[in-house]
């Protein structure tokens, strides 16, 4: 069968066609050849510009013309390849060719869609490849943006954390003043039961404020992600006032803790964050109020690897609207959120926390019937000792004496920049049998230390000018036998504290400080 093609038709079907004479000299070319191989001009020999192969072997046009054998032409000048067939044509040959891209990256290729025939599958491949490449580039930009946003929020969180820390310090100072002066007042009004009850109310409110402050302090300490054995029940109980504040007045918080004694290896800060995320989600699911139940239990079962057999299961159940299945299925997906202004990171971070701790999460939700989120964390088989590596916190570990007793009189230097707190503390320590000298700054303390020998230095950490830690270091150099007790509601990260210094958390409980000083000065 003989086919006649006009040049226009030839160029449309094979834009990279080449017409040669019998001596393989160029007669005419299609638009792709003239555009991409401008040096290949009429009269030029084909073999001066291209290497011809068939199945990797050198080949001749004359041998393959009309045989239907696929011919490959590799440019000797540029990195381009053509593929097609040689056909006897008029008194010479027609090479019916198409561009065969060596790679499918359009960037800087100079390729145009008109270099290809309308039905050439290479066009689809090139576009698909480039589209995927463009989307990858877009995703890279998204990732950079997210990373930038994450860094910004981390910096913001860090600033907030520091601000929260310093605010907590001040707040704890005020609570200290209330608590210490409540204690003083009680001694003044021992014969007035009604007034004593009111003082207890004041002291109780200060204690609750102190618990909330402690939760905020834990949360503000974002850098502390060390994992230690934690009793989740104790952690939840300790932060109950904070959780109640978090869910708000319209939502009732019920605790049902049944995992006493079971410990898991987690970061307390991360755990608190995780529980907070779950409670905030529960609260947001109940804009008109409701109930959130936070419960714990120990479960015995094996995981897929046959590993851990005991798990602490935390359940956060709300009485909100619940979720549709398609929303529920994606609830833990990063960046997925149905809330206006939701980041989609809350539940994702809960899952990340659980997985990091070797646990798992699941969510059960029914539209109109609320949502239950389960957090399963592996129990520690043996109750490991807390490898906190942190500072000793005697306020938590020491048990306060039931009543105050007279001790040997010992000289104590108290440094506290809050005048009311200093006054109350000095008076209470005096009553408890200590010889107390109170000053409001590090400089004044150094003067006293130069004048007199003290058994103990009780100093606030955050002081105007020189910090309490710096003061303690200087004082210890002057008198290595001096017992140092630092007190603060907030320990700035940059402070370096010595191993043998004791630490007292504010707000200060009169009985605890007395006991601590007694122990320190006796030793």
């Amino acid at each position, binding site marked *: 069968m003989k086919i006649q093609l006009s040049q226009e038709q030839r160029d449309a079907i094979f834009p990279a066609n080449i017409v040669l004479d019998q001596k393989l000299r160029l007669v005419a070319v299609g638009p792709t050849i003239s555009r991409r191989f401008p040096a290949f001009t009429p009269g030029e020999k084909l073999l001066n510009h291209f290497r011809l192969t068939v199945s990797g072997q050198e080949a001749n046009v004359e041998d393959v013309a009309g045989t239907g054998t696929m011919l490959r032409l590799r440019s000797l000048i540029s990195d381009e390849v053509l593929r097609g067939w040689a056909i006897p044509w008029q008194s010479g040959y027609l090479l019916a060719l198409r561009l065969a891209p060596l790679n499918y990256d*359009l*960037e*800087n*290729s100079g*390729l*145009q*869609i*008109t270099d290809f025939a309308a039905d050439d599958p290479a*066009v*689809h491949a*090139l*576009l*698909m490849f*480039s*589209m*995927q*490449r*463009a*989307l990858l*580039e*877009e*995703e890279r*930009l*998204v990732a950079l*943006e*997210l990373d930038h*946003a994450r860094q910004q929020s981390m910096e913001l969180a860090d600033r907030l954390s520091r601000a929260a820390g310093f605010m907590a310090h001040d707040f704890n100072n005020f609570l200290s003043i209330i608590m210490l002066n409540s204690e003083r007042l009680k001694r003044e009004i021992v014969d007035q039961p009604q007034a004593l009850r009111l003082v207890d109310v004041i002291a109780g409110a200060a204690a609750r404020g102190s618990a909330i402050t402690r939760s905020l302090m834990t949360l503000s300490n974002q850098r502390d992600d060390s994992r230690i054995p934690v009793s989740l029940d104790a952690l939840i109980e300790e932060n109950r006032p904070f959780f109640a504040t978090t869910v708000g007045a319209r939502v009732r918080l019920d605790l049902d803790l049944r995992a006493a004694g079971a410990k898991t290896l987690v970061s307390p800060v991360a755990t608190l964050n995780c529980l907070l995320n779950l409670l905030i989600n529960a609260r947001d699911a109940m804009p008109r109020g409701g109930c959130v139940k936070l419960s714990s239990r120990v479960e015995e079962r094996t995981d897929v690897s046959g590993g851990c057999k005991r798990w602490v299961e935390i359940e956060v159940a709300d009485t909100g609207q619940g979720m549709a299945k398609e929303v529920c299925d994606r609830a833990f997906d990063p*960046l*997925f*959120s149905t809330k*206006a*202004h*939701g*980041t*989609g990171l809350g539940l994702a971070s809960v899952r990340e926390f659980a997985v990091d701790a070797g646990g798992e999460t699941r969510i059960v939700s029914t539209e109109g019937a609320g949502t239950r989120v389960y957090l399963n964390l592996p129990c520690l088989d043996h109750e490991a000792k807390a490898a906190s590596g942190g500072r000793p916190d005697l306020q938590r570990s020491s048990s306060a004496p039931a009543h105050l007793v007279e001790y040997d009189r010992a000289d104590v230097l108290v440094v506290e920049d809050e005048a009311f707190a200093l006054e109350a503390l000095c008076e209470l320590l005096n009553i408890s049998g200590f010889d107390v000298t109170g000053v409001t700054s590090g400089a004044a303390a150094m003067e006293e230390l130069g004048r007199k020998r003290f058994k103990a230095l009780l100093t606030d950490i955050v002081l105007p000018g020189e910090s309490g830690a710096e003061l303690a270091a200087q004082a210890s150099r002057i008198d290595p036998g001096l017992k140092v007790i630092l007190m603060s509601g907030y320990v700035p990260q940059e402070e370096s504290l010595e191993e043998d210094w004791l630490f007292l958390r504010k707000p200060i409980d009169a009985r605890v400080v007395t006991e601590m000083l007694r122990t320190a000065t006796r030793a």
Partner: protein
Amino acid sequence: MYGMIHRAVRQMVLDRAGKLAWSEIEAMAGIGQSELISAESYDDAITLRLIAGAAECSKVTLDEFLLEFGRYWIQYAEQGSFGAILKFTGNDLPTFLRNLNRLHGSVQSVMPVAQMPSFIVVREEDGLIELDYSSSRQGMVPFVEGLLQGLLDRFGLQGHVEHTYPETVTARFRIAFKTGSER
């Protein structure tokens, strides 16, 4: 629609009205970073909220905004990750329009849930092209008109775009332009 459209709207607002305006639109449309992922397909309602917010912020009607956004999209795509694809699709207006469906066909392969429009050149003369546009989406004619104006800009042509509503397609665009020799 895909997140790449959202990103382009954001960029247009940032270029023309600044960060504060974008923050207001985000708040108005109830969207955030999670709605700006290029390869993610979002409910058209989200896109519409976003565009409505941007129009309100620009103090123009929705159609006026869509027209301007269409024009901006060409510039945005050309300068961004999709530039090479645009260049490949055609280096003159008629070639580009003739190959739009091929471009969209390939996009469809990569983004299977995309609802791609169809563009068919039904008349082509020197300085005049008639283009039939069909889409399952409603209300996008101003956007397409903006795209065509953006293409005139891209190829350095002076011209104007009109449209009619024949029964057989969503809209027919008539693009009249001066060729190089006439300018």
